[in-house]
């Protein structure tokens, strides 16, 4: 039954942005559950609230209303320090723009999340970093700087950084968006392998080919979940309408 326990559960989640007296309802009444070991993809047109959803899941932002339970605990009352700790320990981010730090080497970039923990020794850190880099097949480039790598290589390093801390969930926001199809596929293969190894993944994409890698496909439109289906039928629908 462990497999079926909800790792993440959102209830009536709402996010409203207030800018210059304009209310943007980025998310409205979102219900979503992600179970441990699941690979969920989030799809929808630009501006429908995908990134907003992910940032709330990643505790980078807070919902305007609604409930967010992570690992059985509500995150609503957490202070900034605890939120930072959870981001660090429970969540791994992968961004469209890679977001590696240019001044740090590959090794240092991957090591970064571990440096924000108190209880990891240097040698432990080193073995964790090397393990993560081997998983993404980048261990031969540890002394390189991001600018010296191709886009695909940078994203693999970013994946290594996301998983080095052994988070409960990987959050990927259009991880292939800045990559050509070869590199994109390579990154997706990597995510599939991680999923096969037991990782929980929530990925935003608008490429149906990559959505097909997921167990389950959530459709967002105008801040609402409009459909929740297994991926195959979605692919079929797209093919049919094309």
């Amino acid at each position: 039954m462990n497999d079926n326990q909800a790792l993440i559960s959102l209830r009536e989640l709402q996010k409203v942005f207030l800018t210059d007296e304009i209310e943007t309802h980025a998310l409205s009444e979102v219900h979503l559950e992600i179970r441990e070991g699941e690979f969920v993809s989030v799809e929808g047109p630009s501006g429908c609230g995908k990134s907003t959803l992910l940032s709330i899941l990643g505790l980078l932002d807070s919902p305007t209303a609604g409930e967010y339970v992570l690992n059985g605990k509500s995150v609503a009352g957490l202070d900034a320090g605890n939120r930072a700790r959870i981001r660090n320990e429970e969540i791994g981010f992968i961004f469209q723009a890679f977001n590696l730090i240019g001044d740090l080497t590959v090794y240092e970039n991957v090591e970064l999340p571990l440096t924000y923990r108190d209880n990891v020794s240097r040698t432990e850190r080193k073995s964790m970093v090397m393990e993560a880099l081997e998983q993404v097949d980048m261990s031969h480039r540890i002394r390189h700087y991001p600018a010296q790598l191709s886009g695909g290589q940078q994203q693999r390093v970013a994946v290594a950084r996301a998983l080095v801390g052994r988070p409960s969930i990987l959050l990927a926001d259009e991880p292939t968006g800045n990559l050509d199809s070869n590199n994109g596929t390579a990154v997706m293969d990597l995510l599939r392998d991680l999923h096969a190894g037991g990782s929980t993944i929530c990925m935003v994409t608008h490429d149906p080919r990559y959505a097909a890698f997921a167990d389950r496909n959530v459709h967002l439109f105008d801040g609402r979940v409009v459909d929740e289906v297994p991926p195959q039928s979605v692919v079929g629908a797209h093919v049919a309408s094309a």
Partner: protein
Amino acid sequence: MKLLDDVRYAIRMLSKSPGFSALTLTILSLGLGASIFGFAVLHAIVLKPLPFSEPHELMHIETAILERDIDSREVNFDDFSDWREMQTSFEDLGAFYRGTVNIRGSEKPERYDGGFMSDGSFALIGGKPLMGRTFIAADTVFGAPAVVLLGYKVWQRTFNGDEDIVGQVLRVNGRDAEIVGVMPEGFMFPIMEDIWVPLRYDQADRQRGEGQSLEVFGRLKDGVSASQARAEFQGITSQLASAHPETNDGVTAVIKPFSDEYVDEGTRAAIWSMMIAVTLVLLIACANVANLLLSRTTARTQEVAIRAALGAGRRRLVIQMLIESFVLALGGAFIGLALAYWGMDASARFFGESGNRLPFWVVLELDFWSAVFAIAAAGATALLSGLVPALRATGLEINLILRENARGSTSRQTKWLSQSLVVTEIALSFILLVLAGLTIQTSLIMQEFDVGVPVENVLTVRLGLPEADYETPAEQARFFTELNERIQDIRGVNKATVSGGLPGLWSNWSSYLPEVDEVTDDTRLEGAPYIAVANGYFDAFETPLLQGRDFDDRDSAESLPVVIVNNTFATTVFGSENPVGRQVRFGSPDNANQPAQWRTIIGVSQNIKQTGLGEDEERPTFYVPLVQDPVRFMSVALRTSGEPKALAPALRNVVQQLDPELPLYWVQTLEEAYQDEIAPNRLLGICFGVFAVIALLLAAGGLYGVISFNVIQRTPELGIRRALGADDKSIALLVSRQAALQLGLGLGIGILGAVGASQILESVILVSPLDPTIYITVALLLIVSVIIATLVPSRKAIRIEPMAALRYE
């Protein structure tokens, strides 16, 4: 014309970012203003050639007796005349001394600084009279009719510029003298003299070496070098030594440029240290501006890259950016000139009001050379602050900029540069603040200095009896004794006295030997303050006698020669024994001027610091009754119950009753006299204080700018770190760690620099150049400034919303 286009373009670019331009202009104005001011002072006092024809040929000559550690001594008349006759290196030698000249024209008597000049002096310096003539050899013969040469100011003020003044007769130092000429405006040789009389010696009853000593100078003949002159004088002085062993044994001549004599070493050191300070301010300003330009450069990489892609050569791009720096620097120089003008004006007024007199050729004003310096400094500033940013901006890989997606990597070198600039700023500020601390501390020590007597409500004046009217010591003593009695009765006077010098200001000196010592040929005599005082002096200055009695009517010219010694002398020589009744010997065995004399100690006074404000050492000090050893120049001190200055007219009346021709001068309160005394040090302290404040503001502002800019640049990075779980503390640490590192490095370098630079102040300051309190205070001040400068950007960094930072796609 291309240049004009570039300038126009530069001005357009600058006016497009008014905030940046205004900030840069302000910084440059402060930096350049300070340095123009510093240079103008340096030029006016030290660098400017003397206003004499061919000033570099003029040499100053004095004597030294190296065997006795005397390296600078004025010249006696006999040596001067012998040298003048024997030497061939110089066209001629001149001699003078400076002294009081009292004149009485139509109205009240007036006292002027006068030059007592040998006959060749005016010709040597190229001083030509406005009308009449200067002195001829016949004027300097003792007993010849008295003559006087007026300065422009006296001529205008006392004689309303009377065109027929030459040939008229004027009362000068108690004698009728014929006015033989008037010197042109601005001529005040040698220092600030208003009037000149011929140098004369009564040859009849004078031993070799006796009499007023002189300053001697000469003009080198064409083709003769100073070292050739020195060689010749070596021969001359040894000839004189064998001819007159009793006076000239071991006496040699010291020849140096005339200008070196009139701005003393302390002043030179102070002014050079000020030049160092303003240079530091300018360098700090340069570092600041370089940093501003660097950040602007980063903001402009896109513009530059596009222009480069369109085919602009690197040289052209660099020149274009440098022109912007030049435009800014010239603007800064212009405003800086205005600031320096104001500074010079304020200093000149401060100095003028203090009654201190600089040599006449020193005019505290901006001149042509200040403008030249301003332009040169602006050019150097533009290059120094603009070149590196321009090279950085144009040397980047265009390719990288146009398709950069790894954040921050191109700016790594820029960052390194701007961080070392901050280190430089901190180091330079440290040096400057230490120099400022040392001078300010010195002026505070002087300000607070306790001479050992109450100084409030004391009116002082100086009187100088002309030799012609008061030839004998008895006449001089009679005048001052009489004066001392009459001033006691002035209404409003609590106590009054007459003395050779005032506490903390000046005094006569004498060499002395306590009776316990044996006098041998090798005995080195020490000198100490030796002050003639009227009866009641100690009472007037509220200084109790610790032992014995004060001078009174029992002491006369004929009675036993007596002395009152101070406590320092009593305890160092006699320990716990009572010195009353013991003897001290005054005068040196080989000085014919001052025959040795034994005096019996009748009292011991509490210590009064007689020599200088800030003088730490407790020296032996001697007081003698003025009836036994009168001097022609004495000070009057009135302790009053009300406003001291209000009693000046009454005092003038009393003096006038005794001698209608005797002018009073230096009429001021004792406190004013002290303020005047320390005015140069205060001015130096104020200048350094202003420079230090500017430097501190610039350094802290620069640091703030760099860190803020850094935070903005690192916004995405900080967002990523946030997403990866960095908490507030680690973000704040990240931002401030850099500042801490820069601070540490800057302080380290600064301390080394300050240890070196402060040495130059050694002769000017009253604290150790390594005074730990000042170093620690300065370090704390900088640490606090850095913390303040870091606080705001760190808080900004903490507040960065991770989502906003990451929303870059």
